[in-house]
Each structure stands twice: as structure tokens, then as C-alpha cells.
């Protein structure tokens, strides 16, 4: 017996192009996970998307400067409960502040503050940046980490998130200190990974599939 599967509407995801990072990899990863991806510089496109990705490599101050024009549109999206996924620096930007800007003598730089807390520099007797594959230790349920507990992901960073509320920590990794590898806001709709899912092989693709599934709901 053959049945026609129900028409699948792939989740429509916008990747915010604020001038940082390798957007090609994250786009390919999301497409591989079944998403319909648009790279955009236009905050007005956010409202119609099923999910928003904030990519990012680089420094906190530069990231926030570049993301400035999107601040309001992102806050509106978060209020509507649209999924927002921050990757690496994009995750750090979900918090309120970062020591990085202070260390650079740049004073306070205000993050997006979707997850209350700050970002701090690794103070460990190890090489910084923390670069390479590290094991994920899932701390609590969240759809984004479905099926990845104990798997490895690819990290490159010198700072890590330090949320005010321990419950914001979804998964950790160990680099002389247990630091948050995945965080989420209270509602669970705004979340981020310190590692790069688009560079984390099959585990990363699983996370991107989890994200696409969550957006398609």
C-alpha cells in the first residue's frame, strides 16, 4: 500500500548576516537538516521566519556593534516566542555583558540580555583559547540537546557564559572548569551553543535537526 506523505513545509530559517563569521557552513548545515535558509541583513524579515540564527565569530564589542541594528527586532521576536539560536559569539551575545569588552578597555557593552548573566574569560592552567573537540554533558531536558549527551562538539573560544540562573545551563563541557556549552532562557525559546554545530560532524547536524524540528512545530 502506498500513501502520499503529508506535504512537509520545511522550517524557514533566517540567518542574520551582521558581517561576522562563515555563513556558508551554518547555511549548509541547516539545509542538510532540512531547513529552507535565507541569509538576511533585513530585521523586517524576522517576523515571518520560523526561527532565527545568530551566528558569530570574533569579539563581543564588535559583535554587539554590528548586531545593534537588530536589537529591537530580536527583542520583538523573543517576546513573540520565536526560536532564536545563537552560535558561539552569537550565544554569548544572548547574555547581558562580557568581560571581553572590559578587558579591551571598552567599558560596558550591553548584550541582548535574553539570558541574564555575563561572559567570563577562562581562568585555568590550560591553553586559551579552548580549541577542539570536547564532550557534552547534558544537565537538563531541552529539545535542542535531544540525542547528544556524551557526544563531542567543536569549540573555539576564550570566554564562556556565566548565567545568573543555574537553570539556564542546558549542557556543560569540562576544560579545567565545567562551563556552559548550551544555554537557554526560561521559556526555552531563546538558546545557544558555545560550540559550532555546523562544524561538529554528526553531533552538530543532530543539533541542527533538533533546531529545525523545533522551528517546524
Amino acid at each position, binding site marked *: 500500500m502506498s500513501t502520499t506523505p503529508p506535504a512537509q513545509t520545511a522550517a524557514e530559517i533566517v540567518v542574520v548576516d551582521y558581517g561576522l563569521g*562563515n555563513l*556558508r*557552513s551554518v547555511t*549548509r*548545515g541547516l539545509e*542538510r537538516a532540512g531547513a529552507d535558509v535565507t541569509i538576511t541583513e533585513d530585521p523586517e524579515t524576522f517576523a515571518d521566519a520560523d526561527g532565527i540564527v545568530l551566528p558569530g*565569530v*570574533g*569579539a563581543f564589542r564588535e559583535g554587539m556593534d554590528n548586531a545593534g541594528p537588530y536589537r529591537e527586532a530580536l527583542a520583538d521576536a523573543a517576546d513573540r516566542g520565536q526560536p532564536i539560536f545563537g552560535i558561539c559569539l552569537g550565544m554569548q551575545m544572548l547574555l547581558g555583558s562580557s568581560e571581553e569588552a572590559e578587558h579591551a578597555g571598552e567599558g560596558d557593552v550591553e548584550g541582548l540580555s535574553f539570558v541574564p548573566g555575563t561572559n567570563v574569560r577562562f581562568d585555568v592552567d*590550560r*591553553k*586559551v*583559547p*579552548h*580549541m*577542539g*573537540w*570536547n*564532550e557534552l554533558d547534558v544537565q537538563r531536558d531541552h529539545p535542542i540537546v535531544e540525542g547528544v549527551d556524551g557526544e*563531542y562538539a*567543536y569549540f*573555539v573560544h576564550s570566554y564562556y557564559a556565566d548565567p545568573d540562573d543555574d537553570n539556564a545551563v542546558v549542557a556543560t563541557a*569540562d*576544560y579545567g572548569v565545567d562551563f556552559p556549552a548550551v544555554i537557554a532562557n526560561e521559556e526555552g525559546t531563546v538558546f545557544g551553543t558555545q560550540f559550532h554545530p*555546523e*562544524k*561538529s*560532524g*554528526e553531533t*552538530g*547536524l543532530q543539533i541542527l535537526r533538533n533546531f529545525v524540528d523545533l522551528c517546524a512545530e
Partner: protein
Amino acid sequence: MLTKRIIPCIDVDLDEEGNAAVYTGVNFEDLKYTGDPVEMAKAYNEAGADEFVFLDITASADDRETMLETVSAVADECFIPLTVGGGIRTKEDIKETLRAGADKVSINTAALQRPELITEGAEAFGSQCIVISVDARRRFDDEGEYYTTVDGEECWFECTIKGGREGTGRDVVAWAIEAEERGAGELFVNSIDTDGTKDGYDIPLTKAVCDNVSTPVIASSGCGGPEHMAEVFTEAGADAGLAASIFHFDEYSIQEVKADLDEQGIPVRR
């Protein structure tokens, strides 16, 4: 726990028809056709490689367009970090290569000739994507800065260019320290002395670099099997081990190497 990385590397040239193809050195001299770069990237991605290194060995500016297209095709199959090297001489070259889909660029001669390129690249694109590659050779005279002992003799390491055919007089360790200060995010250490031998990495060289910098070090040249990877991780302190022919010619699979390291208690991603 952070794992040691196992990295296959391909040397890419153009074949007679102008298509990108992988060639691997056999017995120091002969280059043997090894496969299609995109197919190889896909296979290593699936086999559990931790990263992938793509070196353009055409050394011709005319072929740059074809190479960048190949980099893009490789990047589309690579859900692991991709480093691209060869022929990168300017900040614009770095930008183009990253745009094509590379996560990191490896720079060798151009950085030795104009060290400011490291600073410019790191400031514009972040240290994490600037890899400085050196081709070291042993020298047993008194012209070096940092000495170690090799086979009972005092030895220093010199940066060479043109595949080891020309010396520069620059001490590898001193250069590594400068590259780190200028913002290099990783160091890629090749040895003219052990390249192609399959007798193991140049341990004194790798250790000398690792002992003097805090930037991650990728050891290269001379890997003949998992025992050499183990040696360079435990004795020299390398963060990653690169190999070509043992993987390309199916002498060992990525997983066999990792299983072996795992048995010895060396953390690897399985």
C-alpha cells in the same frame, strides 16, 4: 575533556585537464594521483576525522579561481573544521578563502616575508582562523637562538621556504613566539627532516615549539602509524597530529588510529 585531534591532509593540484586532483608524495619524489578532493573530504568527514586540511600546491595565481571553487565544493561536504593553505599572500586572499568556506587559512612564506600579515589577518578575521605554517629543518651550527639536543648534538631549527630548498636563517622557535604575539591562532609545524620518512614526527622540533608557545600546535611530517601520533602527543605535547599517506593509501583508518590512542589513555573523539 578536550581531545587530541587527528587530521588528514590533502595536497591539491590541477590535473592535465585542469581539474583539481589530490596528489600524494611517495618515497620523497613521485607524486601519485590519489583521488578527487571533494570525494575525499566527504569520506574523511564520514570516517570521523576531526578536521580537514586542504593545501593548494599549484602555486600559480592563474589557477586560484579553480582552487577556490574546489574549496567551496569541499566546504559543502565538510561538517568539520576546514583549513586551507597554499598561495595565500594577502589579506584579500585570506578573505576570499574564508568566503569560499574555509574556517581557517594556513600561511607560510608570505608571513615570514611580511609578519604584519598575521596581525592584519587576526584583527580582521579573528586569531582562530589564522594558522601559521612552518617548514623546519635541523641545523647543527651556532647560528640559532633556541637549541635542543638531537642525537646527542646541539641543534636548532631553521624556517625554510620553497619546500625546504631555501633557508631563511630564521629560528623556528623564535618565529613561533613572534607569530603567537602577532595573533596566530594555531601553529602548523612541518619538518623537512622527517617528511616522507614514516619514521615518526620530528619530536625535538615539535617539543621545542610546544614548550615555548601556548598556541595549539599541529604536528606534521613523518607519521607512519598510531604509535607516532601517540608519541607526538605524549612526548612533545602536540594538540593535533596530521597525516596524509597512511590514511590516503588505507594503511590505517581514522578509527583504527583513534582506537589505538584510546587504548593508551589518550583522549580522542570516538
